[in-house]
Structures are given as structure tokens and as C-alpha cells.
């Protein structure tokens, strides 16, 4: 294992992407391909009483219309089995936009035209679609608690309490959700833009009641995913269409429909109470969170507490919460997931505490450092949050800040505000099974679980292999995301790259040993390919597997079965988290109150940095999306109609280049000594967590106005 910093390498797939050569699932064309389009429900709840398809079948080019009658009954639900697959087509309507029929046709135009002719009739029922709706069902969640919060708060020298709101938001990666299904010789091959090919395989097999051994999923190049592209309802529909028609079928879901069918960041409301002693030490935190939830959704409320608990050395924590059950599709994971809104609330409240107790926000955080996991008392394997804070403060020039709100004004009258906040995200681990094969003709193939979504996993793996093995870089193939080449994990939760990099490192070591054994002390010149050629061995192949801390062989078996085998970051004996500290400058126009962000400094502790270029790119993306969470994005729901209103990229406002100022990135690059052999930790999520609080805190510093709901818009400051 090399110990020095990894060298800067270009992104492996950069040229292919900028040249338009990278092929995503939607790009795939096949002979005899049929095109599909869904018919979405116009009502939010009720029953479909008739589905007339005759007009659609008269549209030239339409081949067939799939209806609920074309699908098997859902598989029986078992408590200890895998999660149930998404439903297929049903007459019971659970949310507006639910697919009711699938039209397949010789052309995309015919499929669209056919779908537009279908006007089902409905028996509507009353529905509830936002927290405030009559009929919303409130379901308390499991508490997360330790210490004695009421007593600690009663002794606190200063306390703050406030309510913070994070809105509904939808992932809007540029690439739409696309599925191509091919049914051939009793085998189903699915090409899909997915970050969870093995879960797609299991879900399709389960929904269509076919043997999983006959289902194969190839995750194509993904044009952004961020938690949205896991398991889709559409996949089994397209697969069924391919089976019934005997032809390949493609569905690229329109963006307006994706808003209604894919998962999203659900709206949350956080009530935070923090108490501190006279020395500025936080003594207790009380955090109640409610979220909008679907009738059967499992996106867990308790996870809003998991990371925030460990941000500082807090001895008393009471985390409560509730699901508000509504007639909506399932919410789900979206970059930063639970800590994203939780840290907006908590780090905003901490800023309020800093002002109330007359302390500098950076000093307050530095003073609340911890070496142990406050929930269980076990050590944190590595924690460089204070290094992030000091480095960020130094680069930003924080010491020059005058703390008084509204005290800095630009020559044009703009109010200037400097704010900061921190982020935390667990560093979980998934097991990996990999094969590495080097041949005598200059080729190397490394097959492992994982999906390249733009985060740079492919490049990080290549960096480790090229660092550790004397091979031809041009002949290196990294095969990931395909259930046919290796068991696949779901790439999410910032556990992807930090789980496969140690496996790549181990594979390189094992391969070097295998070569040493093979050569038996003979001196053979040239790189590994030439060595094989010299001794007339066509190839050498090794297999390795890695486990997360505390995992045993059963985790590998679960991975092979396509199950969820992730070791969460509270490991036996130690806990591992990633950290970030963000410093933001806002400028607010005196008249029209436009908010701009000319400058951000963001420092992250992600353990060892294996691929500096893609790691920094992750942080840029995280910062920009954090600014978007704070200042731009919100999905609008009209409670009279259900569904979502602003369903395109014009009305669902994400930042454009003109919104983004200077962003300076720093990575601590200190290895974690315990989590894995390379010392890497997760980065994708933590780079975003905390930014929105830093923006809100900067807005307060600029104006003296505390905005506790996102996005912050001009009307908040007029």
C-alpha cells in the first residue's frame, strides 16, 4: 500500500462525456425496438372504473396497450424477506400521476399519441397531500434519546428554540429515467439508468414473479442520480411489455411524469431546542421532526437524528418525530438525505445560540469538539472537524468579520453577510466481491460492484490500480454496475467509492503476490503484460472480497443474493463519520433584495483522498446544490388537486452558472485509521450538508433577519 498522496488524474470518462460518446440507457437503439409511454392518473386517490383503449389501438403504429390485467398479483409480503417491489399497474389509485397503462408502439410519436387518447374514468375519493390537509394521518416515530434533556436544559445558562422548514424538493438530474428491456431465450436483460442494478433485478423478478436467475441488469452510464435512480415502478412495466411483445421496449419517462413517480426529498419541519452552559458548552439538544410521508413509505424519521447527534459532544439528546401519512408517492433519498434538512435546522439554531450567548459561531463549534460518539461512548475513528473549521476560517478571512448583524455594507448599498455552518454524514461500508484479470496482450479487467453516476468511482478505482500495478493504462477496463459481472451493491449513502477502493487496493496487492508466486524469483523484464507474455501465460486472474467493519461472511452472501448488506457507520468498537465546514458570503441588494453568493469556502474531512480531481468536483457539486437548497428549489403542491405544479426545468428553479460565484475547496486528506485499509471515508453527501444553514446564517448576519424556511427568496427580505 502506497502511503503518499494520490496523484491527480484526469477523469477516466471525461473525454467520452464531453464528446457525447458516453452512452446512457436512453441512447440505446436495437433492431425491432418498440417505444413506450405511460398514461398517468389525473386524480390523487380512488379507483379507475374504466380504461378504454380502443382509440389508442387505432393510432397507426400502436402495437399494444398494457393494462392492470396484464400483470400478475403482487408477491406476498414477508416480514424478513426483501422489501416488496414497487407495484405494477393497478386500478387502485394512490397518488396523482400514478401510471395506469403503458402504450407500446413502433415510434415514440405513436406511443405518445396513443397514450394521450386514453382517458380513464375514475371514482374519486377525498385525499390529503400536504401536512396541513384535513385527513393527514400523524404517526409518531421511534424516539432517539440518551441522557436527561429536561434536567440539563433546566441548568442551561442560555437556550434557543425555533422551528425550521425544509421544502419538498425533486432531484432533477439532466438524464431522465430510462429503461430498455430485452426478452430473449427466456432471459430478461434490462438496460437502465440505475444506481442499484441488483435491487432492480430483484424488484423486477419479484413483481413479474420470474426467477431472478433469468433477470440481468446493466446499469448504463448515468447522467446524474443522487438517490433518485434506485428502483423504479416503470422497470417491471417495460419488462412485461418486452415479454408480451417479444420485442425490445424502451421507455424514457418525461420530466413532468418523473416528478410524480420518482422519489423526492420530502418536506420536513424541525423544532430544535439547544441549551448551553456559561462556558458555551452545549449541554442538551431536543429535536422534534415531522415529515410528509406516503401511506406505506419507509423513509425513516429516526434517521434525522443519526448524524446530528454526533456533530458535537452533546451528553443529552432527545430526538422525537412523526410521519404525516399522505396520498403521495414514496419520498426517498436525495443527496444529503436526512442530515441535509436536519443540519439546516440544527446549524441555524446553533447560530442563534452563538448570537444569544455572545460567542463567535466558529469558536462555539470548536469548543464543542468530541473524540467519542456521544450516543454510545465509543471512540470516533477519525474526526477532523476542527481542522475543517480552522482551515476554512483561515482561507475565508473569518477573523476580519464584525459580528454585528447588518454591520457590513458595500459601496453600492448592498448588505454583506458572512455565515458559516458544519456538515456531518455517516461513513458506511458495503462488502465487495471483485475479480481482477491481467492478460498477456495488454488488457486488464477489474469487475466489481458499484455504479458510476458522475461521482468519480470509476476514476478512483483506476487510480488505485494504476498506482499499485505496472499495467498499460489504455488497456484497463473497469466493469461496474452490471449484475452479470459481479454482485452489485446499491451505490448510495456515500458508501460506494470508499467501499470499492479498499477492494481495488487489496486486488492489486493480491495480484502482485500472485505474480511473485508465478515468477518464483525469476527476473522477467517489462510490465505485467510483458511478464505474462514472456512466460507464455495468457492471463492471470485473482478474486478478492472485502467486508465492512464487524461484518462476517453472511454479508458477502447477502451481497451475492442482491440484498442490502451495508454496515452502518456505528461499527462494533468505533464510529466513523465524515465532516465539513462551510463559509459563505452573501450580498443583498438594498432595493430589490436580490441575494447573491459571491464566495464560498468549503473544507471536507473525507479521510484519505484517492482521486483529488473527482473528489473536489464532488464538493463543488455539493456546495452548488446546497446553495440551491437554500435559495432556489421548492416543488409546489396545490392541495386542492394533489400532484406537483412546477414540473419542468423552467419552473423548478435550480441554479445556473450566473448564480455561482467563487467556490474554494479544501480536503483535509488525513486517513481514517480503522474504517478500512486505505483510510477513505464518504464524501458525496457531506459536501452538501450544512451549506444551506451557512447561507441562512449569512443572510442573518447581513440583514438581522432570521429566515427559518427554505428557499430564502426576495420576498423574505423586502
Amino acid at each position, binding site marked *: 500500500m502506497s502511503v503518499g498522496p494520490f496523484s491527480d488524474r484526469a477523469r477516466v470518462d471525461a473525454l467520452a462525456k464531453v464528446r457525447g460518446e458516453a452512452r446512457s440507457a436512453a441512447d440505446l437503439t436495437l433492431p425491432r425496438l418498440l417505444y413506450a409511454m405511460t398514461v398517468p392518473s389525473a386524480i390523487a386517490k380512488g379507483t379507475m372504473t374504466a380504461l378504454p383503449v380502443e382509440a389508442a389501438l387505432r393510432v397507426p403504429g400502436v402495437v399494444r396497450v398494457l393494462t392492470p390485467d396484464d400483470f400478475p398479483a403482487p408477491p406476498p409480503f414477508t416480514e424478513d424477506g426483501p422489501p416488496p417491489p414497487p407495484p405494477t399497474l393497478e386500478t387502485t389509485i394512490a397518488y396523482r400521476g400514478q401510471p395506469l397503462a403503458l402504450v407500446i408502439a413502433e415510434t415514440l410519436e405513436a406511443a405518445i399519441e396513443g397514450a394521450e387518447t386514453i382517458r380513464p374514468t375514475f371514482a374519486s375519493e377525498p385525499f390529503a397531500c400536504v401536512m396541513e390537509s384535513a385527513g393527514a394521518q400523524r404517526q409518531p416515530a421511534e424516539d432517539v434519546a440518551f441522557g436527561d434533556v429536561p434536567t440539563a436544559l433546566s441548568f442551561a445558562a442560555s437556550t434557543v428554540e425555533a422551528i425550521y422548514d425544509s421544502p419538498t424538493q425533486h432531484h432533477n438530474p439532466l438524464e431522465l429515467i430510462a429503461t430498455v428491456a430485452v426478452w430473449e431465450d427466456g432471459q430478461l436483460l434490462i438496460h437502465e439508468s440505475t444506481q442499484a442494478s441488483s435491487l432492480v433485478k430483484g424488484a423486477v423478478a419479484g413483481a413479474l414473479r420470474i426467477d431472478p436467475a433469468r433477470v440481468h441488469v446493466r446499469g448504463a452510464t448515468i447522467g446524474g442520480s443522487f438517490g433518485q435512480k434506485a428502483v423504479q415502478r416503470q422497470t417491471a412495466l417495460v419488462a412485461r411489455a418486452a415479454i408480451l411483445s417479444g420485442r425490445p421496449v424502451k421507455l424514457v419517462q418525461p420530466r413532468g411524469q418523473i416528478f410524480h413517480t420518482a422519489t423526492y426529498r420530502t418536506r420536513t419541519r424541525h423544532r430544535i431546542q439547544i441549551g448551553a452552559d456559561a462556558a458555551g458548552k452545549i449541554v442538551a439538544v431536543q429535536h422534534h421532526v415531522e415529515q410528509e410521508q406516503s401511506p406505506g413509505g419507509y423513509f425513516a424519521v429516526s434517521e434525522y437524528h443519526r448524524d446530528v447527534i454526533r456533530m458535537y459532544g452533546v451528553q443529552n439528546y432527545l430526538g422525537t418525530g412523526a410521519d404525516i401519512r399522505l396520498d403521495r408517492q414514496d419520498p426517498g433519498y436525495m443527496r444529503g438525505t436526512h442530515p441535509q434538512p436536519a443540519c439546516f435546522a440544527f446549524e441555524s439554531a446553533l447560530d442563534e445560540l452563538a448570537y444569544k450567548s455572545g460567542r463567535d459561531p466558529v469558536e462555539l463549534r470548536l469548543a464543542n469538539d468530541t473524540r467519542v460518539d456521544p450516543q454510545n461512548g465509543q471512540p470516533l475513528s477519525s474526526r477532523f472537524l476542527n481542522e475543517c473549521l480552522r482551515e476554512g476560517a483561515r482561507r475565508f478571512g473569518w477573523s476580519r468579520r464584525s459580528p454585528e448583524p447588518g454591520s457590513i455594507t458595500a459601496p453600492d448599498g448592498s448588505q454583506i453577510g458572512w455565515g458559516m455552518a458544519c456538515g456531518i454524514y455517516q461513513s458506511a461500508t458495503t462488502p465487495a466481491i471483485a475479480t481482477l484479470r491481467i492478460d498477456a496482450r495488454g488488457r486488464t479487467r477489474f469487475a466489481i460492484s458499484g455504479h458510476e453516476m458522475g461521482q468519480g468511482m470509476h476514476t478512483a478505482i483506476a487510480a488505485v490500480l494504476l498506482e499499485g500495478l505496472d499495467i498499460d493504462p489504455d488497456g484497463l477496463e473497469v466493469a461496474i454496475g452490471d449484475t452479470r459481472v459481479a454482485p452489485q451493491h446499491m451505490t448510495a449513502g456515500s458508501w460506494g467509492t470508499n467501499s470499492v477502493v479498499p477492494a481495488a487496493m487489496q486486488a492489486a496487492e493480491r495480484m502482485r503476490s500472485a505474480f511473485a508466486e508465478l515468477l518464483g524469483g525469476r527476473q522477467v523484464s517489462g510490465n505485467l503484460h510483458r511478464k505474462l507474455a514472456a512466460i507464455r501465460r495468457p492471463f492471470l486472474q485473482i478474486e478478492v472480497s472485502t467486508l465492512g467493519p464487524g461484518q462476517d461472511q453472511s454479508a458477502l452472501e447477502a451481497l451475492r443474493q442482491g440484498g442490502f448488506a451495508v454496515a452502518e457507520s456505528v461499527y462494533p468498537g468505533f464510529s466513523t463519520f465524515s465532516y465539513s465546514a462551510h463559509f459563505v458570503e452573501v450580498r443583498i441588494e438594498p432595493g430589490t433584495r436580490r441575494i447573491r453568493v459571491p464566495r464560498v469556502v468549503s473544507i471536507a474531512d473525507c479521510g484519505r483522498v484517492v482521486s483529488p480531481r473527482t473528489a473536489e468536483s464532488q464538493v463543488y457539486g455539493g456546495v452548488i446544490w446546497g446553495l440551491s437548497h437554500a435559495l432556489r428549489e421548492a416543488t409546489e403542491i396545490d392541495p386542492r388537486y394533489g400532484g406537483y405544479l412546477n414540473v419542468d426545468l423552467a419552473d423548478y428553479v435550480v441554479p445556473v*452558472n*450566473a448564480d455561482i460565484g467563487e467556490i474554494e475547496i479544501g480536503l483535509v486528506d488525513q486517513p481514517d485509521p480503522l474504517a478500512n485499509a486505505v483510510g477513505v471515508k464518504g464524501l458525496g453527501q457531506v459536501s452538501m450538508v450544512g451549506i444551506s444553514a451557512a447561507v441562512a446564517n449569512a443572510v442573518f448576519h447581513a440583514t438581522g433577519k432570521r429566515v427559518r424556511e427554505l428557499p430564502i427568496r426576495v420576498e423574505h427580505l423586502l
Partner: protein
Amino acid sequence: MQPFSYIRPATPQEAVGAFAQAGEGARFIAGGTTLYDLMKLNIERPRHLIDVSAIEGFNRIETDGDRLRFEANAAMSAVATDPVVARDYPVLAESLWKAASQQLRNMATVGGNLLQRTRCMYFRNGAGGIYPCNKREPGSGCAAIGGLDRGQAVLGTSDTCTAVSPGDWPVALVAMDASIEVLGPNGTRSMPVADLYRLPDTTPHVEFTLDPGEMITAIVVPKTLAGRRSTYHKIRDRESYAFALTSAAVALEMNDDRVERARIALGGVATRPWRAPEAEEVLAGQRLTPELALAAGRAAFRDARPGRHNGFKVELGARTIADALRIAADRSRT
């Protein structure tokens, strides 16, 4: 998505003739940036498209003499970068620059831009019986009234429609007293740009005063020294590629620090490009101060009728006018 016929006439006369011949469901199309979009949303369902983009020499930009004349097919980006327009009429250039994206500005024409339809989300996203809309389906009702109306108009609304007129360019043209040349089955005519747009009243689906088969052939802007002291100031939810929350087109004739005459038109706040004579009157003959500028801004919104979530547009709109007046006044006359 329904089948349609498609032809590319070679002259404006041919285009108008083809339209008359096509009968029901005919539409002119130029850059296509609005019409194709609305066809995909199943709102526009033309049976015949008469594509005027292939007409030769229908995109000239004339800046000699006492007027500016832009033929209908001139691209937004071409007019925005014309040296005379950019130097002497920043209000026109800026209204084009601050609209859409470069790709769209390269495709969209200055004639077609005048006929862009509203961005009201209930209008755009509700086809297929989801949201009622008097513009899309006359008589069905208006979901925006009493709904999520943050983006809706506060001026010129009616009990049947509050949809905002979305354009930037028409606002600048209305401020500059521009007119259009129109060719139709009965020959040519000319009218002020301001007269092209109807208030929603009880018929919000009838948006323009053009007769069936009439085509805009050119836009004419009388030259004025006020062009130099002009600006198009646009406030939106992001710094580019967004429609206006509020905007103000302002051009000033000044005598030292006194306003002799102000021209002010508003976007993002009204059901049609909105000239603001109340604001202009406040300024006439007065020394321009920040207080007076804000008073003028507030005067423009005296009759505003905000809904549930768009009340901020009244104050924001007033401040947008005030800022635009300062920006315009700061520009030198030479």
C-alpha cells in the same frame, strides 16, 4: 401529439395565402421555441404548420433614418447584438439579453416573441383535465385564483384569469412606443405594439388583436434620444434563464437632473405588457431623487390587486422601477 401538415412558403404573401387555404387549425411557426413546447404539452394542437423561417430576406435589421425597423424573422440574438441597438437603445438590447438562454435567443425571432403565451403553471401543466383554465379551456374556471399564485399578475387581472404576460421584449417595445406591421388576407396594416394585447376580461383565451391569418412582418421603433438613457431591469428567481418576477423598461429624457419625460413599462406583474402612465406623471418635470423614484414606482401599482402569495410583487415592482430609474439616469446621453 397529433399529426399535422407542414409547409415552408418562400414569401410573406405565400405564407398568408397558405394560411387562408389551410383553414381550421392553421398556425404560423418561426423559431418554434414556444409553439413546439406547447404542442408537446398538448395545449397547442395545430393541424397545419406554416413555417415562415425559410422566407428570404425577412430578417433585416434597419437602423438608418428616423426609426429602427426589425423584420419579424430577425433572431433575438441578432437584434440584441446589433451595434446601433446595443449602443443607443440599451432597453431593447437588455430586454432581449435577459430573456431565455443563448440557444433559445438564437432560434427565437423578434416577431414570434411578441406572441409568446403565458407561463402560468396551471395553464401549462394542466392539460388532460387536471387543472381548470379559462385560457386553455374557455369556461372551465381558473385554478390560479385561490391557488399557488406567487407568479401571477397583480395588474390587469379579471375574475377569470390572472396569467402574466411573460415577455420582456414586448415590455421594452411598449415603453418605446413601437408599432408592428401586419400582413393579412386583407392587406397590410400597422398598429402600436401596446394594442396587440388584450386584457383577459371575460375572454382570457383571446389574447391578441390580430385577425385570423394575420402575420407580424416587422417591428418599428421611432428613434429617440431617450434610448440612450434607458434600461430593462429584471428581477427573477435566478440570475439567468428565468421569467421576470418583476421588470421595468425605463427610458428618460432629462434636462440636467430633471426628468422632462419618462417612459415606463412593466413586465412580470400584469396580464399584458403594462405601460405605467401614473408613474410617468409623478416624474414629469421633477428632479429625480431616490424618494421620487420610489414614489413613481408605488404610483404604478396603485390599482394592484394581489392574490394570496404575490403581494410582494407590489413592493418589489415599485422598487424595481426605482432601481431602473436610477440605472437609466446614470447613463450618459453621449
